[in-house]
């Protein structure tokens, strides 16, 4: 891989020499440094290195329809919330791409998503430490007006190497209105995709499929404020590599997602349902873990931005779940009693995710189970959330955001605990976020959050109990911010664990540069983006973050 990187760099240099005009170079830089000090009260450990650092630099060169780029990444050593396998320095990402007359050719690394991602998504999420960029060849072609094709072959990145599986994929999409030049007010878009993973079989007992295929079909109908999206996906059997007969599962997998949206001025509503059964696609059948997941089934729950609302986040169960979600957005008009001078915005959100009827599809010589299609009643509840958000500008100086929520979190299941260890946690959360403009450019913002938790069943272990959090932030536009916050686990049954987690942050922003420095304790917890989660260990120390873009 390093040889290739070098080749790419030489290639860039030669471009520079031969084409001295019109080219553009830009990119961005990110540095995250953290010191780790021991704090036995919160189980924070000191790192041997004292300081750990994750950094990267992206460089992209473009000239007319050509572009090439690379990313230098440095983990010396990786922050404790990253997988240890991110280790050392390297150029794990480099690409060259050009497009001519509707054909786009990419060699090297690329990110790709087919449809909503049910059968394939290659993406990066720095916050989670996920980067499953493909390395190979990708072609995109605009065949006719409204018809586009994508195809690729490649291997997926895991840390500084590539997983065993070779992926081949093709995706086609047709926008009927553009292709047939329909004058209809309703737009119809159809799409279909196919993915195949090759991995050599090496099981001495069972004949595992070497080529695992997945396909999906999708439909999008749009008319004015209405929008319907539906996608169905199927995966052939992809058993785990085990020699134990009862562990081998020859069942196929399937998933669907469906959403209906309506919106008009001042009002919007979205209803969604999805179901996944045995639908995990890994880049290597012998590995487990988020670094190997190659399809994307996001959780059907609201991504919360406030700390206590995200204390118990939901992780998608691609092996088997059924979820529904409803969102209503409404703006109470200006000048009305409840709307005030500026109007009041409301967002009601409801989501509920449960298991499939007796678990996911399972098939071998001993078992043959296929769950019924739609079943809510009597199924194991994984997660539920009902919340209301009120956003209001009171006058020129004061604005607030108020959220009230009730969440149910199946800790045993979602965190892989033994049944009966913690059981199901129900929490009621309130958030008030108030901004006060002191004078031009100067704003004081305060947050108060509270979480009251109860364990719904008798369990062998006690959960952390109630929390309260307060935050004060002072900002001076356009350059400065200062934040202090405290999270306090006042309701912990164990008095020695009624701890404060205090954090202070100070930052400077100017144009394309941002510097921030912080000090404090972080609670051990689960951090999720899109239903993909990682465990963040507790820590105590100083952190420095610099981001820059040019």
């Amino acid at each position, binding site marked *: 891989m390093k040889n290739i*990187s*070098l080749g790419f*760099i*030489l290639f*860039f*240099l030669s471009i*520079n*020499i031969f084409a001295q005009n019109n*080219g*553009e*170079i830009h*990119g961005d830089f990110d540095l995250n440094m953290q010191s780790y000090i021991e704090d036995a009260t919160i189980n924070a450990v000191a790192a041997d290195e004292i300081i750990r650092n994750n950094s990267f630099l992206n*460089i*992209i*060169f*473009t000239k007319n329809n050509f572009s090439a780029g690379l990313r*230098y990444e440095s983990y010396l050593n990786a922050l404790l919330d990253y997988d240890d396998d991110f280790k050392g*320095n390297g*150029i794990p990402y480099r690409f060259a791409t050009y*497009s001519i007359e509707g054909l786009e050719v990419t060699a090297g690394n690329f*990110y790709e998503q087919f449809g*909503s991602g049910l059968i394939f*998504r290659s*993406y*990066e999420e720095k916050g989670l430490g996920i980067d499953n960029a493909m390395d190979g060849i990708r072609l995109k072609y605009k065949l006719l007006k409204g018809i586009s094709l994508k195809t690729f072959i490649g291997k997926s990145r895991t840390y500084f190497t590539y997983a065993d599986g070779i992926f081949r994929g093709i995706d086609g999409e047709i*926008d009927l209105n553009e292709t047939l030049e329909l004058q209809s007010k309703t737009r119809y878009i159809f799409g279909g995709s196919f993915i195949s993973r090759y991995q050599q079989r090496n099981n001495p007992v069972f004949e595992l499929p070497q080529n695992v295929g997945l396909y999906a079909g999708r439909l999008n109908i*749009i008319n004015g404020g209405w*929008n319907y999206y539906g996608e169905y996906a199927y995966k052939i059997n992809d058993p785990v590599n085990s020699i134990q007969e009862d562990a081998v599962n020859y069942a196929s997998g399937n998933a669907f997602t469906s959403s209906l*949206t309506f*919106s008009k*001025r*001042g009002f*919007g*509503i*979205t209803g*969604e349902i999805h179901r996944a059964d045995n639908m995990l696609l890994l880049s290597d059948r012998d590995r487990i873990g988020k670094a190997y997941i190659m399809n*994307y089934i*996001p*959780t059907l729950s*609201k*991504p919360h*931005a406030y700390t206590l609302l995200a204390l118990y986040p939901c992780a998608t169960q691609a092996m088997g779940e059924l979820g529904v979600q409803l*969102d209503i*957005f*409404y703006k109470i008009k200006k000048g009305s009693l409840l709307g005030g001078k500026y109007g009041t*915005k409301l*967002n009601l959100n409801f989501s509920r995710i449960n298991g499939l009827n007796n678990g996911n599809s399972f098939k071998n010589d001993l078992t043959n189970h296929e769950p019924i299609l739609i079943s809510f009643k009597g199924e194991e509840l994984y997660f539920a959330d009902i919340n209301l958000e009120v956003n209001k500008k009171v006058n020129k100086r004061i604005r607030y*955001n108020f959220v009230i929520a009730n969440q149910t979190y199946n800790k045993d299941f979602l965190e892989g605990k033994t049944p009966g260890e913690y059981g199901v946690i129900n929490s009621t959360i309130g958030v008030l976020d108030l901004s006060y403009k002191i004078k031009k*450019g100067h704003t004081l913002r305060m947050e108060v959050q509270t979480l009251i938790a109860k364990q719904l069943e008798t369990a062998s272990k006690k959960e952390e109990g109630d929390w309260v959090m307060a935050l004060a932030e002072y*900002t001076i*536009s*356009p350059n400065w911010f200062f934040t202090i916050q405290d999270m306090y686990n006042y309701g912990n049954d164990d008095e020695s664990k009624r701890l404060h987690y205090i954090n202070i942050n100070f930052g400077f*922003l100017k*144009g*394309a540069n*941002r510097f921030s420095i912080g000090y404090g304790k972080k609670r051990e917890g689960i951090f999720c983006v*899109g*239903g993909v989660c990682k465990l963040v260990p507790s820590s105590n120390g100083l952190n420095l973050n610099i*981001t820059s*873009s040019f």
Partner: protein
Amino acid sequence: MKQLSIILIATFLNVGTIFSQERSLPNIDVKTLDGATFNIQDLENENNPIVISFWATWCKPCKKELNNIAEIYEDWQDETGVKVVAISIDDTRSMSKVAPYVNSSDWEYEIYLDSNSDLKRALGVSSVPHTFLINSEGKIVWQHKGYIDGDEDELYEQIQAISK
């Protein structure tokens, strides 16, 4: 070998300085709210300035920025002819909330979806909000990371400086 790579990158950056410092929009497709494909290089505003703001429905400061601008957007348009383009990086998880949020908030912006972050990556946006200002020749002349209350005043000064 590693040292060599670093030296080469450094050289490459040095050589880069002889390039024009102007920056154009990349050749990347995004989606409109009604499902059509749109190449971001086709953005135009009759030679008036364009503001591109990257945001997401789950990003509080992003929504604050765009809501604050929404209140004074008419004045900005009257005085400078500026157009605000809001690019959502919501992925499949929250993409279906974009249209209801935008419409219920009365935003008059042009909205595009960048659901697998292709445009975000091509423009070197590491986190949202991130705002770019585009001049009449389609070149990026100013950018800003993050949003704190009152930042729209600085943005407006920049818009005024380039509007005719």
